[in-house]
């Protein structure tokens, strides 16, 4: 690129139902780097955007949850491949937003892509690890299998803008759920870029919907939405988590509570973010001649 070339800047938009709309509210907010310099005007998602995203996620659920586990694994692995191609862009955004040195930003992006690969490999193991046959006292083949909970609202971590985001989103998808994600408010740019990755990775539209904006504003609408089955409060403001959990009780949502402090996302997550968004179905199949 010649030094005097004027760069073409990107408009940062939402990612809903496979498309990139602006917020229906017309609102944007200013995103700065860690030192306060202007980076972008991000779309400021509204209640209506959140509701549209839930409709999209519900619509996408049957196909995504009904895909074979092998197919879901391949699609998710494809996401990691495309992320790898955007490695430099992610590094730049993470470094700017989180105020990291380029080597630490690189480490965070590496970990995020590796985390995505890790979850991609889980899709076709969950049934064997979490399910099983139950030796009931009767003429039945009785078995239990994990199934996705449904539409999961995810309030993504506020500090770790890519590794944190991937750590909460990928397990939801690996289990076969669809997601409505509210990004980090102050550091939304990696989420927007991840949306572009998803749009070009064979993930069906609507499976992931990414909203940039304020979890404190949109969170309550998602927590009380009757067509949302579960909510991950990872990025909920500390003083709002209890209220959000209360709202979620109205439709008996599964709630994954936030840690008191945002955790170190590089730690091995185990199954802790997969099982909260899985149901166990038990089938009694008759045995007889």
């Amino acid at each position, binding site marked *: 690129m010649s030094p005097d070339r004027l760069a073409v800047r990107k408009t940062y938009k939402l990612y809903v139902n496979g498309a990139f709309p602006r917020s229906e509210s017309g609102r944007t907010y200013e995103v700065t780097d860690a030192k306060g310099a202007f980076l972008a005007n991000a779309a400021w998602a509204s209640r209506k955007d959140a509701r549209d995203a839930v409709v999209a996620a519900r619509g996408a659920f049957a196909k995504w949850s009904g895909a074979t586990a092998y197919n879901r694994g391949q699609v998710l692995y494809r996401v990691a491949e495309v992320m790898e191609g955007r490695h430099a862009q992610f590094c730049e955004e993470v470094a700017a937003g989180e105020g990291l040195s380029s080597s630490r930003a690189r480490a965070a992006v590496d970990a995020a892509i590796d985390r995505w690969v890790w979850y991609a490999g889980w899709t076709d193991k969950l049934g064997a*690890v*979490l399910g*099983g046959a*139950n*030796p*009931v*006292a*009767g003429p*039945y083949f*009785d078995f*239990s299998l*994990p199934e996705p*909970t449904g539409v999961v609202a995810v309030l993504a971590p506020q500090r770790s803008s890519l590794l944190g985001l991937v750590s909460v989103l990928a397990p939801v998808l690996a289990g076969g759920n669809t997601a409505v994600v509210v990004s980090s408010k102050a550091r939304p740019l990696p989420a927007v870029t991840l949306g572009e990755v998803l749009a070009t990775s064979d993930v069906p539209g609507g499976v992931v919907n990414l909203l940039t904006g304020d979890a404190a504003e949109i969170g309550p609408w998602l927590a009380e939405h009757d067509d949302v*089955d579960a909510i991950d409060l990872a990025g909920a403001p500390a003083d709002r*988590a*209890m*209220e959000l*959990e*209360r709202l*979620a*009780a*109205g*439709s*008996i949502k*599964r*709630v994954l509570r936030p840690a008191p402090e945002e955790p170190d996302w590089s730690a091995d997550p*185990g*199954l*802790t973010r997969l*099982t*909260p968004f*899985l*149901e*166990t*179905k*038990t*089938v*009694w*199949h*008759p045995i007889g001649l």
Partner: protein
Amino acid sequence: MTQLFDYAPAPESRSIVDVAPSYGLFLDGEFVDGSGAPFKTINPATEEVLSEVATGTAEDVDRAVRAARRAFTRVWGPMRPADRGKYLFRIARLLQERAREFAVLESLDNGKPIRESRDVDVPLAAAHFFYHAGWADKLDWAGLGPGPRPLGVAGQVIPWNFPLLMLAWKVAPALATGNTVVLKPAETTPLTALLFAEVCRQADLPPGVVNIVTGAGDTGRAVVEHEDVDKVAFTGSTEVGRAIARAVAGTRKKLTLELGGKAANIVFDDAPIDQAVEGIVQGIFFNQGHVCCAGSRLLVQESVHDEVIASLQRRIGTLRVGDPLDKNTDVGAINSAEQLARIRELSDIGVAEGAHRWQPACELPERGFWFPPTVFTDVSPAHRIARDEVFGPVLSVLTFRTPDEAVAKANNTTYGLSAGIWTEKGSRILAIADRLRAGVVWANTFNQFDPTSPFGGYKQSGYGREGGRHGLAAYLEGADSK
């Protein structure tokens, strides 16, 4: 229907049970007085007062939780897992030894037929303790993470429909995983829990490991809201489940909820009709329909609708409604006046909304709470009787033409606890089961339970599982409640 043969009465003797005129709370291994105003528990089949039972106040609950905490820290937590298992094996055996006594007492206090308390409730309760006893020293192999640790004190609130069995579902896994318990039985059916307290004493279970605090909603609330409770387990209505989920919001408490249901029982045209009719009857009239997983919505393929309904009505005509202690009784008493009023209200709404109500000619006893087996046809999915949990012997019949329509109608509910499929075709069973959003799916059977088989709901039927390997997770640190 003409009766060819009359049945002679075949009453089970109630002399085997010795109901005390009054009962206290079971705290720290002793029966003590409650601080609240005692309440009466009655026999719903006769309205006879059986006993007067203590009401636990918030102070009593606090004493119970402190006893449970002490027992957890000093005795039950540090105990060798194999020894915890042995206590549970003892309890299982004691329940078997005293099975008849428990069965008669359950039928007296709850109104369910002795045939069911004797053949289902009590044997299954014993089986739950026997099953979980074996887990106590094998938790490292449960696949729930390395070195699984108990949570501490479990506060458990159980319903009146299966009083002893629900106690077993709650207490057995909690104890096997090393937790101690404060249990609040339902206010209309406290007696078998209090007899269970005696079993704990016969087993020499260390004081404070199991505490039983009787009372009504306020007592339950005190258990759920107590600060030193680490785990809340509740079985009951979705409405109360919501309130409990709100109450534990923002706390460290781990929560499992087993709530209401509106199960679809789907009959395809290739199903063996006689077998399906038995299953439909078992699905909705078992335990007077006081079953959260009851098959209360019959979805029958249009081509066999008339045949199924005719056969069903013929079969219902032979059901014997009456004295719960009579060994020939199929359908017992409704558990309370309050529940009877709710069943009547919803049944009348069914008629008012345009569905067709059918009831067999049957004589109901003069005293007590009774509701005849009831079938509604011409039900639309919008009717209240197709949407609300009646929790009584009321079946709503809807029809479908294609498997897709059956699945769509079955899933058209806020609940997701159970479902039934009747067909001769194994591949169809698995294909339909795969698409039903329900935690338990029975094929060519209904209302089967087993301690090895995880039970629990999707959607607003609650979360967490009881029974099987999955049920242990609800009582272990780190392991998720699924």
